[in-house]
């Protein structure tokens, strides 16, 4: 440390950088984005952090996309039978044949009827290599009942078979039937939830906003409906549906029944939310400004907890899917030739399926996965529903 030799100025002890006296009030970019973000965006950020919910959402999205193009995805037509392959077990996909790498293929079956116990025995034959075809022409189908085509994503080899999940008692491909069954099983949940959402919001909304006699009556009605055990009630209602109705009308009837029974919990929630919200200042303000009840409820109150409604609805869908499966399994819901996961499980409802043909139980898997996914999704949505917390 020595002093400067000449009269050059000493280094200044005060920073000469530009000084912004409001720097302490400045936000970082991240903070700025956070504070300026819309409610929806905040919800998305929060939701994104809930990994299981995110994965579930993607999974459900994909599954719902498949029902638009079931015909193309299924290797076989819904109704095509293979009378030489009755109760064939699932075929495994291989990529190695005797140690050499090949395009994915399956081994064809050698069939033998065991005369001792009349069991149909299928043995994969290493000599029958059946390469799987991609983006190919196979079974003909009517796309959404509109136009004919025979284009599939995946097909069996020419003259070969491709039963990835085995076949049933008429030699129908189980995988194709599961893919087609998704169309019914997944949409029946949506229709039912629609009905219950509308009923829940309207009845709960009116009860919560007006209170008084309507509230008392609707609450007692809800208590009565909730006190009835659900399965016997479903059975009774399903039995009322005329047996002469076509399966598709029965299908619609069941969705309505499921919806008619499921609105009570939602109505309760809506009512209690409205009780709290209608005391808020902004509601008084709207009233003073002469807004109609309709406008106050639907414009000011409902959006206040719309996110909550979405979460509730999401959790309600799996119960609808399970309801359809239960009713069909009991033989009271959908019937063949309509194909849903419940119908497929009904057909597997005997000791033979469990003991000898376990692959007929595969439709259980998509039911479990979809229900789980909806539950995770609902969980994530509920967490994200109130981002300001």
């Amino acid at each position: 440390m020595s002093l400067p030799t000449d009269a050059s100025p000493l280094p200044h002890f005060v920073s000469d950088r530009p000084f912004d006296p409001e720097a302490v009030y400045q936000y970082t970019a991240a903070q700025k984005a956070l504070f300026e973000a819309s409610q929806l965006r905040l919800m998305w950020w929060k939701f994104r952090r809930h990994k299981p919910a995110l994965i579930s959402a993607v999974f459900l999205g994909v599954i719902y996309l498949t029902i638009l193009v079931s015909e193309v995805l299924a290797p076989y037509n819904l109704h095509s039978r293979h009378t030489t392959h009755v109760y064939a077990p699932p075929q495994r996909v291989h990529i190695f044949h005797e140690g050499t790498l090949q395009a994915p293929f399956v081994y064809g079956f050698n069939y033998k009827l065991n005369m001792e116990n009349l069991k149909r025995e299928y043995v994969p034959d290493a000599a029958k290599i059946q390469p799987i075809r991609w983006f190919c022409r196979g079974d003909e189908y009517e796309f959404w009942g509109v136009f004919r085509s025979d284009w599939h994503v995946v097909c069996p080899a020419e003259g070969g078979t491709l039963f990835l999940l085995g076949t049933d008692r008429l030699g129908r491909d189980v995988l194709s039937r599961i893919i087609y069954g998704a169309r019914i099983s997944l949409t029946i949940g949506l229709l039912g939830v629609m009905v219950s959402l509308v009923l829940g919001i309207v009845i709960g909304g009116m009860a919560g906003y007006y209170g008084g006699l309507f509230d008392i009556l609707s609450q007692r009605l809800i208590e009565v409906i909730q006190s009835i055990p659900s399965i016997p009630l479903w059975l009774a209602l399903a039995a009322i549906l005329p047996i002469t109705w076509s399966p598709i009308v029965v299908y619609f009837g069941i969705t309505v029944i499921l919806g008619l029974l499921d609105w009570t919990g939602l109505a309760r929630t809506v009512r209690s939310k409205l009780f709290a919200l209608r005391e808020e200042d902004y509601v008084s303000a709207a009233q003073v400004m002469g807004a109609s009840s309709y406008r106050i409820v639907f414009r000011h109150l409902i959006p206040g907890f719309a996110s909550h409604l979405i979460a509730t609805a999401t959790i309600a869908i799996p119960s609808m899917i399970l309801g359809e499966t239960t009713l069909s399994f009991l033989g009271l819901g959908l019937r063949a030739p309509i194909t849903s996961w419940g119908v497929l499980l009904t057909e597997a409802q005997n000791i033979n399926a469990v003991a000898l043909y376990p692959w007929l139980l595969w439709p259980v898997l998509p039911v479990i996965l979809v229900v789980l996914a909806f539950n995770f999704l609902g969980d994530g949505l509920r967490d994200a529903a109130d981002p300001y917390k």
Partner: protein
Amino acid sequence: MRTLASVAVLLASLLVPAMAVEEAPVLAERVAAGKMPPQKERLPDEPRVTTVDEATQRTPGKPGGTIRMLMAEQNDLRMVTVYGYARLVGYDRSLELQPDILLSYENDRNRVFTLHLRPGHKWSDGSPFTAEDFRYQWEDVLVDKDMERGGLDPALYAGGEPPKFEVIDPLTVRYTWTAPNPLFLPALAGARPLDIYSASAYLKQFHAKYAEPKALEAAVAAEQVKNWQALQIRKGRSYRPENPDLPTLQPWVNLTRPPANRFVFERNPYYHKLDQNGVQLPYVDQLVINIAESSIIPAKTGSGESDLQERYLSFGDYTFLKEGEERNNYQVRLWTVGKGSAMAFFPNLNAADPGWRAVFRDARFRRALSMGIDRSQINQVLFSGMAQEGASTVLPGSPLYRDELGTAYATHDPDAANALLDEMGLKRGPDGKRRLPDGRPMDLIVESTGESSMEADVQELVASDWQKLGIKLLPRTSQRDIFRSRVAAGSTIMSVWAGVDNGAPTADFSPQEFVPTDPYQLQWPAWGNYMATNGKAGEKIDDPKVARLVELYQQWLAAEDDETKQAAWTEILDIHADQVYSIGIVTATLVPVVVSNKLKNVPEQGISSFDPYAYFGVYEMDAFWMDDAAAN
């Protein structure tokens, strides 16, 4: 022939007292305790002796043991009466009528039937079985105005008249008709027998004519029924043995008062049959019937919970049952189903829909539908190729069967079928579907009860066959009651059911299932109703071929000799083969019968049929026995 048989029985019975009498151990205890008279006093003076030997692949047994069986509902208790098969007269294995409960009978030209009871025959409570039991049932139940019954069983009418009933002496009764009644004896031998006797000593306490009014009133109130008539019916149900107090002549007596999930039947100590060694039948002490859900019965059977099971098992369960054989010590046998056809399509010739009715009346259409079906594919897929493909007629085992009956229009020939339909002028529309004469597309609704998955599967297979003929099959399932009422009302167009019940008749059996006689016949309900009600309801038969069937049936009813009966049967079956009134798919299908390795004398092969075989009845279930020494 018949008198000879009864003489043989008489002779055999004279030999019995000479043989050593062996009491069943359970009964010996009671006899020793003085609770029951010894066997000699319990048996009729002339018991029926049945020979259990090599000739029928049977071995004489030892008394004792329990047979466990599974049933789906309380109504199935009637199966004990069916299996037990003690009848006034019953069929033997070659379907010849033999006196069973009766000592003998005389049949005068099918008009006068004289029935002789066994002296000293007793009900299961030890009270005597006499002509009074017939008189009571006839005078105080069947024709008693107070009982308000809706007429007698059809088998009791001949030429529209009921019989004259006489008691000749305490052991002899006689039924006399002016016209021949060939239905009477078969009805007595039926799986569901005609009730012409009942335990009068017991039932009189529930009849206004005999009972104390006060006591009767109290009984009506206690049972919570409408009136004493209902009480009489409830207490006196012999076919479905629900009432443990009701004495019976069957081999096993119910001990359990319903409702219950486990019914125990015990041997009837007064049963009238012996084997050749003087051992009283039944060999088996107890039947235990457990009630289980019908869909779970194959699983329970496979885990060894039944010693003798045919009910609620189907061909599809065979593989599964076979896997449990070793583990659970039973054997699975395959019996042949005794129905004329395992499944048949019935076009309704009386359909309310005029368009379809007109088409169905044309034999060419029915033949075309039949020829359009690929029966061998159905056989392969559903029966592993083990059934026989063929039209709906009698079974190949019947003496009335001829090859041309089974093969008539039953070979798959879609070209010939299409040619027939073209010849009828049924044009195809632009969608490839044929049109009815009134212009509607041929959407053929086929109704079924939805009870068996086989029906649905066959319909699915047939639908694709008929699509090639330009006919679209639409299956519609309902429930049995709704199905039957729709059929009777003519609302069905086509329905699915099994073929005739008695698939292996001889000329002595009634051809009524092939002739309009019943309002529930699926191919001609209105004509059947017309015949059943003597023209009071239904529609008059306006088809010459069907009218001819009725004429032949009348000839059979009036027949005095076997040639006439044979001729009537032959022509009836010929008309059916030619006209295809029902479209049969496969016959002689197989059904698994599970038999415990301990249970002896159950036939290796048999015919599984309700009537006339009564399932195990004709094979004498009372002579089945449990061999405890058998390998476990």
